[in-house]
């Protein structure tokens, strides 16, 4: 009897300890993420006039919503952001093809794998600095090569058509590494007997890839696709660094053609000091991204359950 009691008290002591252990991350999350979320929700309804103090805030009668949602910038920025999501799709395609080729394990595959992963660990700030120099209109390597080939050099920084492509190219260059690694682990887990069966049925090359490999890749593809969309929706560092902005006027390329939603939020904060507008755009982006996350979570769960 006594023994049992002491055992119980040890149990409950352990239970309290366990509860504390799992609650620390959750309480911290609530404090540092949920509170700011609520505050920024409220911020949408108040004017701040450059100050962050709660006392200075004035009810603005939905003026921020009107300005942001009725303005052109938000929708234009959404379009630019979607273009950056396309860049993520492109790098995913490159990742599939590369992982598929590396999977044949020809000599040098490991070396290529190590090399192709390098862009993933590089900071997008330093990379943007390098690419900015490569896109230089007069002395950049890209225009130098173009003029060597007798093609008219592209005015990357002055052309509304070319500017977003700069950001696109940098994203495509720096993103595939992660996908390559993830796909390679899927490729090596695909059962060899499936391929043998396909060989017997006479499937070759492209057909084999399409009918055998591709279905096996679907869960990972969907996962990486969602990750890519979410990352693309939040594109910020590359367009922020690559722009030319001599007097901090908050210009993102000609006619703001390189202004993503995150850049728009940052500009409202940095140049205009308007945290009410910044909150409205942040919530717009938040709802889109949250919806996508929930969808991907649900679909992934379905796959895992199957």
């Amino acid at each position, binding site marked *: 009897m006594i023994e049992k009691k002491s055992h119980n008290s040890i149990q409950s002591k*352990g*239970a*309290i*300890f*366990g*509860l504390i252990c*799992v609650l*620390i*991350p*959750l309480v*911290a*999350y609530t404090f540092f*993420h949920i509170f*700011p979320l609520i*505050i*920024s929700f409220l911020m949408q309804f108040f004017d701040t006039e450059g100050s*962050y103090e*709660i006392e200075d805030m004035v009810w603005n009668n939905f003026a921020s919503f009107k300005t942001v949602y009725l303005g052109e910038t938000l929708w234009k920025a959404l379009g630019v952001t979607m273009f950056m999501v396309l860049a993520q799709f492109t790098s995913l395609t*490159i990742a599939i093809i*590369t992982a598929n080729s*590396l999977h044949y394990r*020809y000599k040098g595959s490991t070396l*290529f*794998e*190590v090399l192709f*992963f390098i862009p*993933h*660990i*590089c*900071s*997008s*700030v*330093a990379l943007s*600095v*390098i*690419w900015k*120099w*490569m896109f*230089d209109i*007069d*002395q*950049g390597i890209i225009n*130098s*090569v173009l003029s060597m080939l007798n093609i008219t050099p592209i005015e990357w920084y002055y052309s509304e058509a070319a500017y977003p492509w700069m950001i696109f190219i940098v994203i495509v*260059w720096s993103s595939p590494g992660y996908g390559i*690694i*993830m796909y390679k682990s899927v490729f090596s887990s695909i059962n060899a007997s499936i391929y043998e069966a396909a060989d017997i049925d006479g499937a070759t*090359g492209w057909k084999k890839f399409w009918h055998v490999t591709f279905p096996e890749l679907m869960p990972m593809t969907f996962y990486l696709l969602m*990750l890519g969309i979410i990352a693309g929706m*939040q594109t910020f*560092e590359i367009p922020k*660094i690559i722009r030319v902005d001599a007097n901090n006027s908050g210009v993102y390329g000609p006619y703001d053609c390189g202004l993503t939603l995150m850049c728009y*939020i*940052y500009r409202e*904060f940095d140049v205009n000091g308007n*945290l009410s507008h910044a909150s409205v755009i*942040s919530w717009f982006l*938040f709802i889109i991204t949250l919806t996508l*996350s*929930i969808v991907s979570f649900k679909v992934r769960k379905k796959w895992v359950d199957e």
Partner: protein
Amino acid sequence: MEKAKKEKKISTVGSKVGFYIFCGFLTLCVIIPFYVVLVTSMTSWQEIAQAGAEKGFIWWPSKIDFSSYTKIFEMDYNAVGGVPTLLRAFFNTIWMTLFTVGFNLFFSSLAAYAYTKLQFKGKEMIFMIQLATMMIPGATMTIPSVVFYNMLGWVGTRLPVLIPGMFGGASAIFFFRSYFQGISNEYFEAAKIDGLGEFQCFLRIMIPLSVPAFVAQFIFMFVNHYNSYTNSLIYLSYDPSVYTLQYVVDYLTASYEETNAKCAIALTALTPLIIIYLFAQKLFIEGVQAGGGKE
């Protein structure tokens, strides 16, 4: 039969050639930016300025010149306490990263230990809530959070960069949880008979048994923190003594006109991580696979 064999051989040779052409092209794409940054950082500013639009990009300098590197490590007007801005920012980044990542690993693994090895009421429900936090795209709220940190009185200090990330996060908890599930309960039962408490079990048994998991997570988090920029831009751009590396790369490259110095800064910032990667690439790939795969 013979013919089929021959055909097969030809097709493997063909795919081999295709493989090397494809990978060779990608290799070229990956290497070019590094070639450009290296060559330009070794070209003197005079040579670049004189070349102008007519000569375009300088593929190889007429004379190799390292003055760009001495320039960026010289005392600039932002240098505090006799340490060049770039170097100070590097050390700032390292200690701040180690601080946040160290605590994050500790709290994440502790929570995962409780989820896998301890019994208590409400465990499943709390775990579901923790799971749900992963869906919330917190990064979209980075800028409006300024109001919150201002309320706490943290704007103008390092705290908004150091503190929020140190209490553990969902993806790390899930990673550790799945690793810990593979560790037999027998170790802990034996230790409890020896009179070890729950926390002692965690410190003395769980951590030593799961060093690879810690290394993988550490690398994943280290890379992220080393490269992080946005938070420093918002909270640490007020005082040169608290600048972090990526912010300084942005700040200094914007303030220098000389392209060779810009390239030297970018290359200097990239090099430490690339060198560590080349020595421990297996761990890096595992770490990124583990960390990102669970997000």
